[in-house]
């Protein structure tokens, strides 16, 4: 009896079923709270022509940047794509299509996708290149544009702790896009640092309820720091 035990025991199993041409929604902000090992597994599999939804695209050689090395990404919806020389090169050569999306709209598109809201209006982007070609409507005297939501074939998520039912808790600012991504995958895969027994997480303190989670794997993480800023202390 499997019941609600979402655990899998290999990254191969975790990403089973991912194919070229699929849409993948990824949690993470910069290199913080990214599903490192799930990304590495996608690289290992060599699937191509992926459409990625993620705030950033990692850096050269780490995070989603890894998927650029073998040109696995055809299209990316992101708010910021700096800090990545290979990315710039592929963008300038039209080897990758970049759909720049305001950060809040990106988060809301994922949240809405998971929540069964197919589209919403927002003032963000009105009057800018982002609003071009989109329906404009005025609400309470403000011009807003219509934005559609997204659901991915896969969502890949990095949590801190989870129970085996897939109830997930994030740690500090490693939360970022992960809770929204987790709701928006047809198959949602979560990797965490620790798996605990059901009942160990306080029910009213769970960030991502297990209903959203299809597969859960415990991993070890490099957690690379992008900008180490310190004070004398």
């Amino acid at each position, binding site marked *: 009896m499997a019941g609600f035990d979402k655990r899998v025991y290999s990254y191969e199993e975790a990403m089973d079923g991912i194919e070229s041409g699929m849409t993948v929604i990824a949690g993470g902000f910069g290199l913080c709270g990214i599903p490192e090992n799930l990304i590495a597994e996608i690289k290992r599999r060599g699937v191509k022509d992926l459409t990625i939804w993620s705030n950033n695209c990692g850096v050269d050689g780490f995070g989603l940047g890894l998927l650029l090395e073998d040109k696995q990404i055809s299209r990316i919806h992101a708010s910021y794509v700096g800090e990545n020389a290979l990315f710039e090169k592929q963008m300038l050569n039209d080897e990758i299509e970049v759909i720049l999306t305001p*950060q809040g709209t990106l988060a809301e598109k994922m949240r809405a996708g998971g929540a069964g809201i197919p589209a919403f209006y927002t003032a963000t982007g009105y009057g800018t290149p982002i609003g071009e070609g989109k329906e404009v409507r005025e609400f309470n005297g403000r011009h807003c544009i219509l934005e559609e939501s997204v659901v991915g074939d896969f969502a890949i998520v990095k949590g801190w702790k989870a129970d085996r039912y897939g109830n997930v808790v994030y740690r500090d600012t490693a*939360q970022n*896009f992960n*809770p929204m991504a987790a709701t928006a995958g047809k198959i949602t895969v979560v990797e965490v640092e620790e798996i605990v027994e059901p009942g160990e997480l306080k029910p009213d303190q769970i960030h991502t309820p297990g209903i959203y989670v299809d597969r859960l794997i415990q991993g070890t993480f490099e957690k690379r720091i992008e900008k*180490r800023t310190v004070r004398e202390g």
Partner: protein
Amino acid sequence: MALTREQMAMRVARELEDGFYVNLGIGIPTLVANYIPDGIDVMLQSENGLLGMGRYPTEAEVDPDMINAGKETVTARPGAAIFSSGESFAMIRGGHVDLTVLGAFEVDQNGNIASWMIPGKLIKGMGGAMDLVAGAENIICTMTHASKHGESKLLESCNLPLTGAGCINRVLTDLAYLEIKDGAFHLKERAPGVSVEEIKSLTAGKLVVPDHVPEMTFEA
């Protein structure tokens, strides 16, 4: 004399009010945190999901799970709240942040702002800037008044692709502090030793100049 970056940050900091929730962009806006006036408490919002950003960590405190929107390692002050990007932008888009300070390439007399894209140059993305300018009711732009070649950045109409339309109401440049309303820049203060004439000559948009334009003062 044009203001230094530090003086610009100092001048912006005077706009802070006790109890303000503030989002500071990258660059000069970030420096504002160093000049918060005595007796005033502000809470810094970082759009990756942190309300109550603290100081940079000591070496011992560095934590890869604790960064700000500039991807720098930071700390949280006591009483901080940490949440998802969705919640963070709900806050921003919903107008709950009291003041946003951000840089710009150009602003115009109708409050339009261009800050994220120079056609022909590499585009890195708007990040959260479009959400911030659309959501905040109270925005200060910090920027140099003109380019190194003397071309005004305070325009009748922005030339570059916009970040937001009709959303900027205050601008602090290295030469002046101005308000934008009724389709014009209203000169409020000038940098020490900078003449009204110089500001006029470097402002391409419509400029309204009152009889008396006070000079900013900075303690040494």
